[in-house]
């Protein structure tokens, strides 16, 4: 009972944090940060013999780094990125492989549909917060169809009926009302994010917890959380360091930030 009462407080706190942290314009910060970093690096490089092609020689002064992203916590983020790789190797991916062996494919699809129904609830809630009736009714329709005809969400009847599946979360809701992404952030276990979206996970998680708490018996809830995590990892094809490129962190950072920007505009 006590934990239920603290949840709204958590949500409010999260919102305040987000607004406080990411309401400053990203572009200005970005340019300042870039200049500082470049200066630091160039100074450090002067202690070494000049390479065949140095930055001084090749990069024009007014050049724009088209794939740059505001990332003041880069050193910490890279360490978490590294940690996530090891967690994947030793825990997450072996569990996913075991899951594939033990649970037959039709059952895995059922489990995925079950969790997707909760995501549809999340989308419906966030569409309401974004004042977007179209997405709200689309996702609410899915929830109603799938949780009844679709046997508690285990069969995705809605998609077979051709109902579109919008995907909205609290990070996008904040973005919709003008909150910037804030600094790039790699979350432990969850991977690429940013301050806005990372904090946005909290109210979404609280909502899901609240619904599941009312629907499921307590011992079942921990299992459901575990299955949800395994299912999420299984459907995410991304593997840390798989491209082999030393620039992978930069590429992923840019792709994630661009995708999130588009998801908000969508």
């Amino acid at each position, binding site marked *: 009972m006590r934990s239920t009462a603290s949840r709204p407080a958590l949500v409010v706190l999260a919102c305040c944090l987000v607004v406080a942290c990411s309401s400053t314009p990203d572009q200005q910060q970005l340019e300042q940060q870039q200049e500082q*970093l*470049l200066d630091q*690096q*160039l100074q450090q*490089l002067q202690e*070494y*013999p*000049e*390479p*065949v*092609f*140095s*930055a001084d020689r*090749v*990069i*024009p002064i007014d*050049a*724009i*780094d*088209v794939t*740059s992203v505001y990332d003041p916590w*880069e*050193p910490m983020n*890279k*360490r978490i990125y*590294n940690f996530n*790789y090891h967690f994947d190797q030793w825990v997450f991916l072996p569990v996913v492989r075991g899951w594939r062996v033990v649970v037959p494919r039709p059952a895995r699809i059922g489990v995925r549909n079950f969790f997707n129904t909760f995501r549809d609830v999340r989308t419906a809630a966030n569409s309401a917060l974004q004042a977007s009736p179209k997405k709200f009714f689309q996702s609410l329709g899915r929830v109603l169809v799938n949780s009844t005809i679709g046997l508690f969400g285990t069969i995705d009847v809605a998609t077979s009926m051709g109902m*579109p*599946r919008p995907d909205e979360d609290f990070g996008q809701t904040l973005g919709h009302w003008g909150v910037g992404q804030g600094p790039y952030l790699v979350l432990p276990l969850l991977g690429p994010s940013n301050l806005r979206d990372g904090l946005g996970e909290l109210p979404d998680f609280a909502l899901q917890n609240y619904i599941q708490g009312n629907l499921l018996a307590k011992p079942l809830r921990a299992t459901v959380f575990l299955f949800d995590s395994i299912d999420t990892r299984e459907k995410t094809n991304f593997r840390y*360091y798989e*491209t*082999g*490129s*030393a*620039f992978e962190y*930069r590429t992923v950072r840019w792709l994630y930030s*661009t995708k999130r920007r*588009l998801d908000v*505009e*969508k």
Partner: protein
Amino acid sequence: MSNNNILARLLLGHCLLFATSLVFGAVTVKDYKFPIKDRFVATVIGTPAELKAELPTAQQIKFQKKRVRVFPERQVPDLLWYGEELYYSVALQENPSPLIFLIAGTGASHNGGKNVNMARAFHQAGFHVVSISSPTYPNFVTAASSTAVVGHAEIDAEDLYRVMELIWSELDESIDATSFNLTGYSLGAFNSAYVAKLDEEKQSFNFRKVLLINPPVSLYNSISLLDRMTQNIPGGEDNFSQFFDKLVKGFSAVYKQQDDIGDDFLYKAYRAMDLKDEELAALVGVSFRMSSTSLVFTSDVMTDYGYVKPKGLQLDRYADLSIYDQVLLRLGFTDYYHNFFYPFYKSMNPDIRRDEFISAVSLTAISDYLTSAKKITVMHNEDDIILEPGEINFFNDVFGERATIYPFGGHCGNMSYTENVDHMVRTFTSGAP
């Protein structure tokens, strides 16, 4: 006069006949229904989803990632710590079956789209499939390249051969192979030709058949062509960021309209953006450059050559690399060739000369072998964008009937097209097992 006239006609007729036989010695494909006639569009967006060969999925053929340590004593710099072991993929049969090695194209990995597609086709046709990254893939450079400076035809072939022997020695315990076969696309096809030649000496595999799909003739010519494509950026290379913005906006517009990035996403994006041929060429050039930045940087860090990273500077795994990425995006592959690749090998062997060295990295250099090696066949496209004008005739001259030239498809754009997939598979299933 009239006699002369007849003679002239006969001579002319003979010449024409001779000329025709020269031009059409290779099998040119008629009634080819591949729908994309523009070479750049074909290269960029490939085969439309509904015209792709129907194949089992990667999960259905149990396409699995594996790894092997090629140089046990090798110390990889901390920045590239994840690259000590070589990754490859297999899809195996339960019964004794022929085995086929696949070599990926420039910058591509063992589990990249084109290799996975080929694996699906060959596994369905009853082959054990072993899929290997291109020597130009960063993981190959760190884990399996003997010099860590790739692009040298013979050394790359030796490195690939070592890897293939090692993989087979591991697989040998669990499966039976009735024969060994080899194929690759683009640079992987070029590598395959040199690997086949090396196999004649070493005889570890005695390849039964080898298929080269869209190989370059001269590596230097092809990379120069690709380098020059970035000059098609509207307003020149200095306008790279504006061009990049335009592409991102185009993709964004399409992305926002649909639920997910499906098979036909590229095609829709292309249609929506209405790109001109020059812009498509620029896109090819830019993506080639982006994939070469990781390759060149990997070689630079592995050898401490001092190309863009100062010699002696140790970067750890958390180091900020934006400066090097930005420098490399402004350099072409020909810069790498002249200022890193050539001087690197020159320092190992002072006798080599620049022009000879460049011409040695070509199929022309081994054309005698290719003429005599009846096991090798070629599948190519008349309008391939990585060939200089006239270079396509090389395949006709050297391989004759063993070369099949399709009229369209650009560079590897038709590899998933039903007719081409059938061709690939038929090449290896026809004749004695």
